[in-house]
């Protein structure tokens, strides 16, 4: 189906179902219950899930597949965002041109950065991308203030020209839309104690994400993907067989840069503003965390990783001391205090600590990420021995047609 193997098609359908029913799946608790704060089914957060999913999937093509660790990918996200916002300021508030422009500009920028950075590999490559990203951040932050809005960033204003849009009526504010359907519009479904929100912006982003995911599967399974894997495994050997890895790595770099730009454009389409902090190097570190956490080199891993980190960032960080005391209200007071004192540093404002610890544990014990962890647990439960290596499609793909 769609040119995919059966298993991949099943995966794609699974992801499609997940995204389509996300407003239900992420809202398991009634609104009034104490657990309602674990609900993640509100538009803002769901959009983040899919947008950072796109970002991580793209990053995975470079890191997981090709083996190049870039520490500067947030720069492409930021460049895409700025391109999208300028499309909204100058042309139209429609999101489609904004997203297309974001992808193109990010692609061109990543072509430039990749062309230079890919002369080196290993740690030098990481540092070069880091240097480029920090430079872009500094440029956006101060030097290019007329274009980037400096520290305050940019957002569409009523007075912007917008040559393709009809003039705004009195009191109307520019709102991102898709041929008239505003991104903010949502339909609320109230069943019993549950409240489900279906948001236009989320579904636009989700469809784009599915397309991007489909593209990623095709890339993974293509001869081109095989080449990228070969580069990761042993570049020297590849050179000896008479193949020049440079065009392949550059293509992978640009593709992942375009994915980042797509994510940046979508971010602007959902929340029409952009600031330079989006390009700071820790933002690049975040996408690295997402990819590793979920499982680098796997198809769905980065999406899961992105979802997990964004969930932690938005849900765990909301829990405060009072909520903890409520949870443990049934315990004797001294025990309550003890538990809260132990748990408190790891939640709320301290959620980064949990993130760091989880991340370290994953790097140390589970180099394949959470997906590998899930696999191990499943194997343990079904008391099977290790999966037969010959049947692992990731590392022993079916022989594909000869690559010229």
């Amino acid at each position, binding site marked *: 189906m769609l040119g995919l193997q059966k298993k991949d098609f099943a995966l794609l359908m699974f992801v499609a179902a997940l995204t389509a029913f996300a407003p239900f799946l992420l809202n398991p608790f009634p609104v009034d219950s104490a657990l309602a704060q674990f609900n993640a089914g509100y538009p803002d957060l769901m959009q983040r899930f899919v947008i950072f999913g796109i970002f991580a999937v793209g990053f995975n093509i470079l890191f997981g597949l090709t*083996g190049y*660790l870039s520490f500067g990918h947030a720069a492409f996200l930021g460049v895409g965002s700025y391109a999208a916002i300028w499309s909204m300021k100058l042309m139209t508030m429609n999101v489609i041109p904004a997203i297309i422009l974001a992808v193109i500009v990010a692609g061109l920028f990543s072509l430039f950065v990749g062309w*230079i950075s890919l*002369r*080196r*590999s*290993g*740690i*030098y490559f*990481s*540092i*070069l991308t*880091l*240097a*480029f990203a*920090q*430079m872009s951040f*500094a*440029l956006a*932050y*101060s*030097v*290019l203030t007329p274009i980037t809005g400096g520290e305050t960033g940019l957002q569409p204003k009523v007075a912007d020209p917008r040559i393709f849009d009809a003039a705004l009526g009195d009191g109307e504010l520019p709102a991102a839309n898709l041929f008239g359907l505003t991104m903010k519009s949502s339909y609320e479904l109230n069943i019993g104690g549950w409240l489900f929100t279906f948001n236009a912006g989320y579904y636009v982003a989700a469809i784009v994400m599915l397309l991007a995911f489909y593209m990623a599967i095709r890339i993974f399974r293509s001869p081109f993907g095989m080449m990228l894997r070969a580069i990761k495994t042993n*570049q020297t050997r590849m050179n000896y067989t008479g193949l020049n890895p440079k065009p392949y790595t550059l293509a992978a770099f640009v593709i992942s840069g375009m994915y980042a730009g797509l994510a940046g454009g979508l971010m602007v389409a959902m929340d029409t503003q952009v600031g330079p902090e989006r390009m700071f*190097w*820790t933002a690049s*570190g975040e996408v*690295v965390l997402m990819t*590793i956490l979920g499982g680098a080199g796997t198809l769905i891993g980065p999406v899961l990783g992105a979802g997990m980190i964004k969930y932690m960032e938005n849900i765990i960080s909301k829990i405060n001391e009072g909520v903890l005391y409520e949870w443990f209200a049934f315990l004797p007071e001294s025990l309550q205090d003890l538990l809260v004192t132990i748990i408190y*540093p790891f939640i709320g*404002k*301290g959620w*980064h*600590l949990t*993130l*760091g*610890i989880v*991340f*370290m544990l994953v*790097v*140390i014990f589970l*180099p394949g990420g959470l997906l590998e962890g899930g696999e191990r647990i499943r194997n343990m439960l079904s008391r099977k021995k290790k999966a037969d290596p010959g049947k692992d499609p990731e590392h022993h793909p079916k022989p594909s047609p000869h690559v010229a």
Partner: protein
Amino acid sequence: MEAILLQILNGLDKGSAYALIALGLTLIFGTLGVVNFAHGALFMIGAFCAVIFSRILSLSTVTEDPTRKDFLGNPLKIETPYVESWFGPELGSVLINWSVPLSIILAIPVMILVGLAMERGLIKYFYKRPHADQILVTFGLAIVLQEIIKYFFGANPIPTPAPDVFAGSFDFGALIGLEAGQIIYPYWRLVYFAFAAAIIAAVFSFLQFTTFGMVVRAGMADRETVGLLGINIDKRFTIMFAIAAVVAGLAGVMYTPINSPNYHMGMDFLVLSFVVVVVGGMGSLPGAVLAGFLLGILESFASMAQVLSVVPGINQIIIYLVAIVILLTRPRGLMGRKGVMEE
């Protein structure tokens, strides 16, 4: 002329911080072959040793002074630091005043312990794994350390002043025969520079003139052969890691009066120090020091008003620009050795 001299001074000063961190980074890299993204965190821990030590020194008892009244007529509460009651008020206040330089006493054992714990507890298991894994795990560690510091000390910068003696500025111009007041420079920055020079000299002479240093240098060149000679090279490398941690920590301690320590100072310096190391040449100690001072001076020249009026914003990006140019023209950095990190 004065302006240029002043910028060189400024640059030497920025460069001292870069050079010290990069020196430790290179020590770890050159000996153990580990890319340590948690090195900035070590710098930060050093800085917070100064904070902790000054807090310990100023721990105080609260007593009521019946002779003085506040505006409500209650006896005034006065705080007497323990050090003052133990050593007498004069020596006590001097001790508190000198808390930053004195913190070195606390910082050295703490940094040795932290360094040993890090190497034995974590880094040891990553020698054989790819550099990407090393970067990732130390990056995770850096986040954890940073968050722990944030939990205990909060997110705001904590002012940690230098001793009063060094509070003012030094008229540098008078020293070299210029008019008074033309080049004035804060004392503590000169102290920092002198301190950095001393540490760098100490590390170099330790490696150059002691048997231990000789063995370590041999191990850097060929670890296996040194091991075959019956020398426990792993143990020595562990010690080298601790020394690198101490260098970073002391750089942090002495840096606190220049910039109040906060929880993200490690990450701020990390990126820069990596750029410095790469520009200097990975694994080259003189390269790291040279590149540190060079980039520091370049940065301060780029922040001159005359330069900024021609190329606005160049001060923000000069270091990265230089790094990119150098990496592309001299792939091994300024003084890089052959065979380091070249796969």
